[in-house]
């Protein structure tokens, strides 16, 4: 397997603001890596280093083995920026065809990609008359049309409706089957967990964690025990190992770090216990807990 993106010890500062503080990251061919983190974590900065827009102040960035600051290297790169503006007067078909030529392809390559992302009917519409989600799709088509080895997508799903998002994830899956590596940033954590092999959590310019989504979730000690029970909230709170109680719905939800012990007590205390289920945390909670802990450590 070949590495299509390699970032080693990357630092970048804007004046006094340290946006990236020694970041390591790699994306292999065919792999999808989701870059997560709160607003201002440094995701876009990292993306901009990887696409050659910003200089690396320290460290090393390689795209398909080359320096992305050099135009020829970017032949291997398809980019969707956090926001792209198009010249008002150019038509969708012209924009995508232009991107095809710039990427060294024939103009005709545009037609197929536009069909892939559902832009065929909009081919002759001017960019100035597109909706936000349609503009996102144009940007995606322009990123895909060069058949790049590495796709770098900064919040690609912003403004996409449910069906457009589904098309988007399918398109990515097809590209990955053909060997493209993907680095994407998103705030749709659960959706990214469903597609990404690896999740990198960035916080204040540092990587807090880089792992499989399920492995990240498994790091969270907390489990939720869900059940239908006759015990009242006060009794439940007094059970051993219970850290939170939610009796908001018909089913109660008990947060605990030792679900096995809790289950034994619960079954003994309430013979009518039913609809019993234990759930792990979700990736969103795992990411939140990582960044919250980091914030607490910083302020402590």
């Amino acid at each position: 397997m070949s590495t299509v993106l390699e970032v080693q010890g990357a630092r970048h500062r804007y004046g006094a603001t340290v946006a990236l503080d020694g970041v390591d990251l790699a994306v292999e061919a065919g792999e999808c890596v989701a870059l997560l983190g709160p607003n201002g974590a440094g995701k876009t900065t990292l993306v901009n280093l990887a696409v050659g827009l910003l200089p690396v102040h320290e460290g090393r960035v390689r795209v398909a083995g080359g320096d992305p600051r050099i135009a020829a290297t970017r032949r291997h790169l398809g980019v969707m920026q956090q926001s792209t503006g198009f010249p008002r007067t150019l038509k969708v078909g012209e924009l995508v065809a232009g991107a095809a030529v710039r990427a060294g392809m024939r103009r005709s390559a545009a037609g197929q990609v536009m069909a892939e992302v559902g832009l065929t009917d909009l081919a002759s519409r001017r960019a100035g008359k597109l909706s936000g989600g349609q503009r996102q799709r144009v940007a995606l088509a322009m990123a895909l049309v060069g058949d790049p080895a590495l796709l770098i997508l900064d919040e690609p799903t912003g403004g996409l409706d449910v069906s457009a998002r589904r098309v988007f994830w399918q398109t990515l899956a097809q590209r990955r089957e053909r060997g493209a590596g993907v680095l994407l940033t998103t705030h749709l954590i659960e959706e990214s967990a469903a597609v990404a092999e690896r999740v990198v959590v960035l916080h204040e310019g540092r990587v807090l964690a880089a792992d499989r989504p399920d492995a990240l979730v498994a790091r969270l000690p907390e489990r939720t025990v869900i059940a239908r029970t006759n015990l009242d909230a006060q009794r439940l709170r007094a059970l051993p190992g219970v850290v939170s109680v939610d009796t908001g719905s018909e089913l109660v939800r008990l947060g605990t770090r030792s679900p096995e012990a809790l289950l034994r007590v619960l079954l003994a205390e309430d013979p009518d216990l039913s609809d019993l289920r234990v759930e792990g945390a979700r990736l969103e909670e795992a990411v939140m807990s990582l960044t919250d802990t980091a914030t607490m450590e910083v302020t402590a």
Partner: protein
Amino acid sequence: MSARVFGVEVLDELRGIMREPTALFFSVVMPVGFFALFVSIFGQQSAGGVSGGTRMLATFGTFGVLSVTLMNPGIGVADDRERGWLRAKQVSAVPLGVTLAAKVAAALPYAVGVLLAMTVAAAATGSLDASLATLLRLGAVLMIGSLPFALLGMAIGFQAGANASAAILNAILMPSAIASGLWMPLEIMPDVIGRIAPFLPTYHLARLGLAQVNGGGVLEHVLVLLATTAVVAAIAAVSYRHARA
């Protein structure tokens, strides 16, 4: 591949200008209108064996070419940058120089249009006495000589917004035009202006143009314009790097 890319870039630029022509309208209509007015009044007065209309074609022509080549690429760069379109180009596999060269190339047909319209106006008032070869030479000299001004426009476009760039470039072009004798001959202007003029690159471009229609030395003007090009290219490069980092 590069030629194809350049072609696409030029075509996109031309499409933009053609589909939204208002900006260019002013940089074309204004100089041509002025020229038509002046040439109909002063075109017949000849000096040094050359008609006033022909000389004015060189001086007003310089202004006309500059009002397109100084303004359009620069404002275009500023607009692309504000829009985020320049960043899209910067992350493509095409060196940005190709995009910038396309912007200049796309402005040239309009500069040709300005010169043609002025030539027609001069001919219509019966004040044109230059051979076709002379006219072609004048056109070519003004186009090539406008390169440093296009670079200056883009140097500003990398830093300022589109509206600000337009204002700044106008604030450069208008006084330079007056002080270089592009509108009225320096001979009828106050002495002090005549002394300032040789320090202005616009003056040297106009002189180079004039030399095509009524002869005269060109070396000094060529050297000044070459030096200007080198300086402005360096400024544009720094300006770009500043905008990129």
